[in-house]
């Protein structure tokens, strides 16, 4: 290939122009200036290429060289991704720290995956076999619970001419030689894949299983399915990040990709310091051993912020292709959209709504489209999924802005955060009247079959209570609660019980932070039982004020904090006591 070497003619922040770039292709990666900064071509006009630079352009000069790599922006895929933390263009941050110290300097080159480390490779495919893209060649134990399946890259196929014996190899060792139409091709444990291009699948299936998150308001009221999409919009401080961290910690996905896109450095540090200490409830392993982190914080170069979500989703698809359930969290997609807006502004493109480029909606849609439950490519049947959950940070907390609106048009679950709830420390501050999940009917079968037949009924009864409460609140605002009939006051108390002790769940409480699905079911069942019992009691003239000072009332309120091993026994006793206590109150009345 002839070299493409141009020179800088204009620099405006993260966007530069170079001429003499004839032969370049859109989205090819280039090296900019004497410091070899990394950039990507985002517009071509005759021989002038417009380039977004993934590093700080301070001090760059017109006239400095620009060299095209003639390859699109790609990620390296192979053993060693898990437990690593990368910047937006997949440079490993721990390695960068070793090389340039505590502050990120420019022009650092570093392999995404360690070339020196040896992995124990177990071949599976046999010499002479004919394989296609997606077929499994062998396995590597990447972490104690994750088997990394080494696959034929999607674009390759052929007959296996040779495959190495079981043993320890570095990832760039040739492990397989394929022969296709008399041409041979050697494969290593590394694949490269262009981030902006979805990895192929055989076909997509409808999501049907819930992604269990251990968060009651999510699992019970607004569930997300494995392979589904969800958005969590909210003003600052309403709890997006805490919720995404909770999902990253407790979701029953096998692999988690957490993308910190234009947010705080300390939040990534938090994940880095916490995840090695927390246990995955499914495997008992440290959470970090199933997690890949992408950190392009708000003060890191803005163009790399745009790349970070693509880097993340490509890694997610790669593990999906191995047959895993992968969950990806992106905090915050608004910062990604703003990066698009900033670059678009520098390109002097025709602005759409609120200055965002006209292609905002299609970029968001393309991104969320990469989620799904799929049959993977390859000759064996394999199913995997990518679930995507994105935070949205609307200016002024007003959801009518373009990023929130365009996102809601695509995703199937809407967790609406509410500043008023957050102000009064109702966490997670998901508004139960505004939020929705379009997976409810799909996942209720699973809940009915696995957890409790009447799950959907309980869930809907609870929801109806909450709805009724909000109507009654309107009246209370006008006349005060004492003016209501006893039956409605009882209803208000039942709704309050659910609101304060079921919907609310402290992320920072050792036990309450994660609520197993069976415990959720039992809690809800007991609370609804309480609702019935007090309704019955007030109809028998028991005063509501006597009901809410019951000993068992407090017991119900503290159910979330009962250790997960003890709850079955504890709840049984509680149910028994509750019945007795109410019976006693009724008896007293009748006397």
């Amino acid at each position, binding site marked *: 290939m002839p070299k493409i070497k141009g020179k800088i*003619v*204009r620099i*405006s922040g993260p966007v530069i122009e170079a001429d003499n770039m004839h032969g370049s292709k859109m989205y090819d990666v280039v090296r900019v200036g004497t410091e070899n900064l990394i950039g990507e071509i985002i517009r071509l006009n005759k021989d002038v290429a417009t380039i977004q630079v993934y590093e*700080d*352009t*301070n*001090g*760059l*000069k*017109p*006239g400095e060289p620009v060299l095209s790599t003639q390859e699109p922006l790609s990620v390296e895929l192979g053993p060693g991704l898990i437990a690593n*933390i990368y910047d937006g263009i997949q440079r490993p*941050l*721990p390695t*960068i*720290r070793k090389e340039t*110290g*505590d*502050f*990120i*300097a420019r022009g650092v080159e570093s392999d995404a995956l360690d070339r020196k480390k040896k992995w124990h490779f177990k071949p599976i495919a046999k010499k002479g076999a004919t394989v296609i893209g997606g077929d499994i060649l062998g396995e590597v134990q990447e972490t104690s619970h994750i088997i990394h399946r080494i696959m034929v890259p999607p674009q390759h196929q052929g007959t296996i001419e040779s495959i190495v014996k079981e043993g320890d190899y570095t990832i760039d060792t040739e492990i397989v030689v394929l022969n296709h139409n008399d041409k041979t091709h050697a494969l290593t444990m590394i694949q490269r894949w262009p981030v902006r291009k979805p990895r192929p699948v055989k076909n997509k299936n409808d999501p049907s299983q819930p992604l269990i998150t251990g968060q009651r308001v999510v699992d019970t009221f607004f569930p997300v399915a494995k392979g589904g999409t969800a958005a969590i919009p909210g003003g*600052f*401080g309403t709890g997006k990040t805490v919720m995404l961290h909770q999902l990253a910690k407790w979701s029953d996905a096998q692999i988690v990709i957490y993308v910190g896109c234009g947010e*705080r*450095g*300390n939040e*990534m*540090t*938090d994940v*880095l310091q916490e995840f090695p200490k927390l246990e995955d409830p499914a495997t008992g392993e440290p959470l970090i051993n199933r997690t890949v982190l992408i*950190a392009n*914080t*708000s*003060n890191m170069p803005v163009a790399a912020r745009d790349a970070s979500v693509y880097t993340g989703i490509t890694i997610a698809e790669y593990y999906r292709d191995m047959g895993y359930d992968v969950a990806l969290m992106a905090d915050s997609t608004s910062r990604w959209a*703003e990066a698009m*807006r900033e670059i678009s*502004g520098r390109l002097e493109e025709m*602005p759409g709504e*609120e*200055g965002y480029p006209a292609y905002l909606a299609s970029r968001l849609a393309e991104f969320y489209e990469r989620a799904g439950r799929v049959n993977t490519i390859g000759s064996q049947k394999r199913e995997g999924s990518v679930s995507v959950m994105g935070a949205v*940070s609307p*200016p*002024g907390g*007003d959801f009518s802005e373009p990023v929130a609106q365009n996102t809601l048009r695509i995703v199937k679950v809407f967790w609406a955060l509410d500043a008023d709830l957050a*102000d*009064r*420390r109702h966490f997670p501050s998901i508004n139960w009247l505004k939020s929705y999940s379009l997976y409810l009917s799909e996942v209720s079968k699973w809940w009915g079959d696995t957890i409790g037949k009447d799950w959907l009924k309980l869930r809907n009864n609870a929801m109806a209570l909450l709805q009724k409460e909000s109507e009654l609140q309107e009246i*209370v*605002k*006008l*006349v*005060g609660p*004492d003016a209501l009939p006893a039956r409605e006051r009882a209803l208000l108390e039942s709704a309050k019980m659910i609101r*304060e002790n079921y919907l609310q769940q402290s992320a*920072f409480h050792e036990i309450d932070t994660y609520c197993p699905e069976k415990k959720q079911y039992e809690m809800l069942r007991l609370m609804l039982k309480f609702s019935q019992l007090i309704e019955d009691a007030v109809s028998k003239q028991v005063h509501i*004020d006597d009901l809410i*000072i019951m000993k068992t009332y*407090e017991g119900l*309120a*503290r159910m979330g904090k009962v250790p997960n091993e003890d709850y079955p026994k504890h709840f049984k006793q509680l149910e028994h006591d509750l019945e007795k206590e109410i019976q006693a109150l009724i008896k007293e009345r009748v006397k």
Partner: protein
Amino acid sequence: MSNKDIEYTTVIGVEGPLMIVDGIKDVAYNEVVKIRLADGEERTGQVLEAFEHKAIIQVFEGTRGLDTKLTSARFIGETMKLGVSKDMVGRIFDGTGNPLDDAPPIIPEERRDINGEPINPCAREYPREFIQTGISTIDGLNTLVRGQKLPIFSGAGLPHNELAAQIARQAKVLGKQEAFAVVFCAMGITNEEANLFIKDFENTGALERTVMFLNLADDPTIERIILPRMALTCAEYLAFDLNMQVLVILTDMTNYAEALREIAAAREEVPGRRGYPGYMYTDLASLYERAGRIKDKKGSITQIPMLTMPDDDITHPIPDLTGYITEGQIVLERGLNKKNIYPPIAVLPCLSRLMDRGIGEGRTRGDHAGVSNQLYAAYAEGNDLRDLVAIVGEDALSERDRKFLEFADAFEQRFVTQDNHEDRSIIQTLTIAWELLSILPPAELKKIDENYIRMYHPKLNSET
């Protein structure tokens, strides 16, 4: 001949805060430019956009008096740098980093790019050391920790400066005696406001531990773009090279954002919300994210940016984008100020995101988290009832509700209110909290663990 020695007289345009020079070569993006006016006056600028033979330059001291004939420009061959040294402590500098006091210029140990570099997230240490400010609403409910960025959202005419000065005066980490410094960065505040700080620092002897960067209301607005960057470069040097605990006060960020908008407008950029540039989030983050702690380093940078919300509107882009970057916010409210409550901190919209990890047994006290949550919940409820009372009258309330109402009033009077020189220990703060909580029926204290209720509730604890 190197560019440094060439005086270009090819200014082809002046527009707002910008100047365009043509016929040049070898000019770098963000390079510093020395501008000489016809009368010999020298100003400083910076390249905003570099072409092969042309540059667009922002002029810090304003473009008044610039012309296209006699004005000349010299490109100095480097980006904006600040000479740093330990001798900066106790000194006052102007908007371009030159000493404003009578003392001799400092001899820099090193010259650093004022834009700094992002801290590698892997190198950060999560902030968790409790700073006692002596102010109950902060210590008790929105705890500040070392390395945090916690802004004060205020309104015109509210006593945010008094509050900031009080924090600077009283802030300490319990049980530790360490080198600390205040970096004070004034952007467009009045002389009087600046004097309030200077006097206060003088009175408490803090002045000799303070570095001041001043750009006052009548100083050039565009300087406000570089001033906080210089202040933070100095702070980084003190914290991460000299191991000092640094408190940075940035005031008023609203003036900073206005300067940013002015440049965007002059460049005819597509404006974002309310005319502020679309990249304001990123720009503000490049300042606020310079707070923090670094692994294996003793020093820290804690930031208290202050801003006045235009029209007291918290959804205005300046407080809004700030809130999206900082680790919480302290919000002042006009209503409380009118009721003569100092500090007029509106508790409900306040937040400290780093609080959870900075409090509790061994840091403050075991009951702290529960007490704080309970105060919040009870105050929110009492506050709601005020609205109800306004409509239906107090008689329509139940006995229980009346207690919450009483609590809300007492909370404002005794917990929120304190003297400008009152330095409450965290234990005092928690004691007041318990006294107030004892107004409520004990069964209502559901957010506090039972054992703490037994331990600290004034009416229920085991001693009485």
